[in-house]
């Protein structure tokens, strides 16, 4: 079933929470439209701070607001938030330990044809290298809602990113959820897909294809990249013939390399494939065309999976 965009769920959830908690403050950088926060601004004008097109300013202001007791959500396109304002994230939020939630909207290649300046395929990698910063990436509406609800009173710096396209329903509403604990969606012995964020959906469809050919697959939604759920990862791969990781991010420094480092250090050898964006000048196209081009089309994923274990 197709539901809403995670972006939409984020803004509705936040507005709901902010109506009952005056300490919640949102900070935007000419990004309230892109963040679907126009209604938030109309209904709760005193709980939204607009700083203009100034992402560095935004992040440092978030730190200041947090320091005096506000529950702060800084919302800006993930590319500008995490590249432009990286030093503010590193020093003013993470190092200074202000429990701000930074929300990277239109992440990955959501901006399609707008090109490289607008893509954020570096954000997981750079933020992973920063101490004291949690990184969470929802795969569907359910995870998005749970993350935003948890973020309000989360006592540590947090980064969340998602896209703006409608998403498939992946989880049941009674699924338990905790930041830091991945979720096993399907279990099967032949192959394990470890995916994060909206690429879980592509793995889900690939598995439907593989199941028709009698392959049994495990699917993990590794929504939290940091802290990484190493025990779930190790449990899930125990008896498998192969592992595929999937992320809307560069192959460098993301989920796949996180997994490969664990495998190498535990001396686990198995069939293993990282699927993300290679280190090249990125092809031009819509978000889905770009994802398809870089092996994330479900049909192609199923082929790669079969080849990996044959």
């Amino acid at each position: 079933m197709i539901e809403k965009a995670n972006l939409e769920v984020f803004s509705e959830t936040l507005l709901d929470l902010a109506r009952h908690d005056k300490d919640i403050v949102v900070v935007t950088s000419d990004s309230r439209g892109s963040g679907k926060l126009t209604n938030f601004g109309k209904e709760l004008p005193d709980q939204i701070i607009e700083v203009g097109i100034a992402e560095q300013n935004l992040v440092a202001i978030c730190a200041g607001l947090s320091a005096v007791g506000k529950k702060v959500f800084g919302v800006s396109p993930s590319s500008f938030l995490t590249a432009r304002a990286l030093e503010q994230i590193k020093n003013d939020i993470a190092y200074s330990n202000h429990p701000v939630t930074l929300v990277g909207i239109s992440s990955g290649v959501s901006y399609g044809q707008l090109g490289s300046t607008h893509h954020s395929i570096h954000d997981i990698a750079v933020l992973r290298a920063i101490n004291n910063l949690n990184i969470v990436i929802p795969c569907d509406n359910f995870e998005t809602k749970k993350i935003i609800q948890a973020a309000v009173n989360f006592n540590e710096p947090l980064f969340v990113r998602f896209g703006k396209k409608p998403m498939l329903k992946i989880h049941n509403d009674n699924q338990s959820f905790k930041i830091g604990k991945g979720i096993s969606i399907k279990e099967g012995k032949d192959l394990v897909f470890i995916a994060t964020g909206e690429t879980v959906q592509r793995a889900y469809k690939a598995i439907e294809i593989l199941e028709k050919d009698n392959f049994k697959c495990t699917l993990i939604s590794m929504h939290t990249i940091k802290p990484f759920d190493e025990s779930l990862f190790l449990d899930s791969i125990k008896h498998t013939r192969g592992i595929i990781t999937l992320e809307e991010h560069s192959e460098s420094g993301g989920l796949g390399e996180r997994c490969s480092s664990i495998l190498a250090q535990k001396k686990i050898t198995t069939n293993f494939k990282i699927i993300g964006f290679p280190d090249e000048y990125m092809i031009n196209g819509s978000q889905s065309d770009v994802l398809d081009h870089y092996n994330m089309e479900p049909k192609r994923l199923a082929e790669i999976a079969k080849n990996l274990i044959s």
Partner: protein
Amino acid sequence: MNIKTLQSKSIEYRKTILEIIYKSGAGHTAGSLSCIDILNVLYNKILKVDPSNFNSNDRNHYIQSKGHSVEALYTILCDKGFYTKEQLLTLNKFNSHFIGHPTRKVFGVEHNTGALGHGLSVAVGMAIGFKLDTKPYSVFTLLGDGELSEGSVWEGLMTANKYNLDNLIIIIDRNRLQITGETENVNPLEPLKEKFTSFGLSVKEVNGNSVEDLINVFKEVPFENKKPNVIIANTIKGKGVSFIENEVVWHHKVPDDDQYTKAIDELNKQKIQLEND
């Protein structure tokens, strides 16, 4: 090229901007329409940059810092013969080099932009380079007014002042709108002229949608010896199409069939009127 020819070109450029946005299904409509008269005058009167000299460093340079108005830039470069209309019409298509922000994969584009607040400092670097080599070339850069909120802009201005870059011409597309609304509500800029003056720059204001006024102001460069030049170009966002002008939603709205026909119709009427004047 006389004033009337330039005015006629502006109308044709506006039609092309709308055409490529309409056909590709994406684009930053109003910002491209607001700055096209500036690009028209620059490329047809001032810059002296064309496909024959583009590959040399020894020429004037232009950086479009407000990269989202890429349709204006692509349109003018097409008219200057950097590529064909057919190539331009691949805009936003899969595997085309014509993406939604300026990229040097497209012949004639000086610098990759799209993240706001970078172009000025790159232009400062170029202008310093020309000074070091005592070369007579100028560097022009176009910024959005909303873009001025980026702190990096003001870092660049200070360096421009320090190095007496009278070969640097900073043009502000002062259309008073950004995505969220009016610049003066989002993050007030006024008194803008005084801000630039206090940073040591020499400032002139013009009607940025009048090719005549623009030609005149560019002729006055350098405004003052050893001072970087700022032109506050007062423009109308969406200029040329009645229902797009000053309407904030048109920042990145794409015309539907009906709106496209109406817009082209309005522009054709302006052209007939111009010819009869």
